[in-house]
């Protein structure tokens, strides 16, 4: 067994438990932020698993999560915009911390993979993950102010 999987387990356990705690308690704002953080917690874990199991094919999972996770958050940001309007959730410290963790993990896995197509894919995932995370946070803090009937 190897350090990659150990790191992934820690990431999964810590990030997952924190996200679950956040999403089940507190006001609507806190819950959506926690939902958004799930993506940033689990996606790096998936990358680490792929590396730990020695299966580059598993990277596709991280790719899909990085793509669709923020889309899911946008769904909530848009359809709960009335509830969120009062609180304007913003958790920029958390957002940038999560982005930093994502960047570190992507960099570490890239270093282990070495240059090539696989590395390009990893960089795309990293870019999607971080930008998606930041944009979703932006959307939560008043991205859909004018949404009424549409």
């Amino acid at each position: 067994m190897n350090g990659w999987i150990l790191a992934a387990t820690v990431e999964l356990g810590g990030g997952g438990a924190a996200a679950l705690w956040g999403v089940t308690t507190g006001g609507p704002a806190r819950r959506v932020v926690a939902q958004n953080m799930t993506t940033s917690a689990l996606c790096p874990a998936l990358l680490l698993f792929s590396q730990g199991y020695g299966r580059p094919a598993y990277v596709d999972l991280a790719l899909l999560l990085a793509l669709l996770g923020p889309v899911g958050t946008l769904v909530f940001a848009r359809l709960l915009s009335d509830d969120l309007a009062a609180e304007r959730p913003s958790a920029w410290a958390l957002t940038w911390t999560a982005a930093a963790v994502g960047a570190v993990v992507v960099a570490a896995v890239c270093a282990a993979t070495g240059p090539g197509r696989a590395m390009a894919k990893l960089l795309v995932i990293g870019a999607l993950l971080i930008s998606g995370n930041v944009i979703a946070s932006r959307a939560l803090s008043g991205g859909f102010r004018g949404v009424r009937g549409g």
Partner: protein
Amino acid sequence: MTTVMHVLPYLVAAYVFLTGCYGLATSRNLIHAVGCLAVCQSSTYVLLLAVGYRDGATAPVFSDIKPGSRPVVDPVVQALTLTDIVVGATVTALLLALVLQIAKRHGTVDPDELRELRG
């Protein structure tokens, strides 16, 4: 540890199934009830995949490993689970469509207030 590990996944599946049933039976909102049904179904995924798991094995996908180089888990249960997930998503959608119509026709989604069919 190992004896617990031998049954833990199955017990989790059973627990999740019963939890979902509890939520379904006590639900006060039909949309919530449909969500609980989805929880019930996720227990079947866990059970099926746990049944097909094999210690120290990897996925039977040979795009990045040589066939025969590593032990592999059971692909059949994975195919079954895939089918199951599709079934779950579609049933959720169909039931939600019915809930929407109930909301329109009855003006409520609380099962306690639906009093038309009885006796």
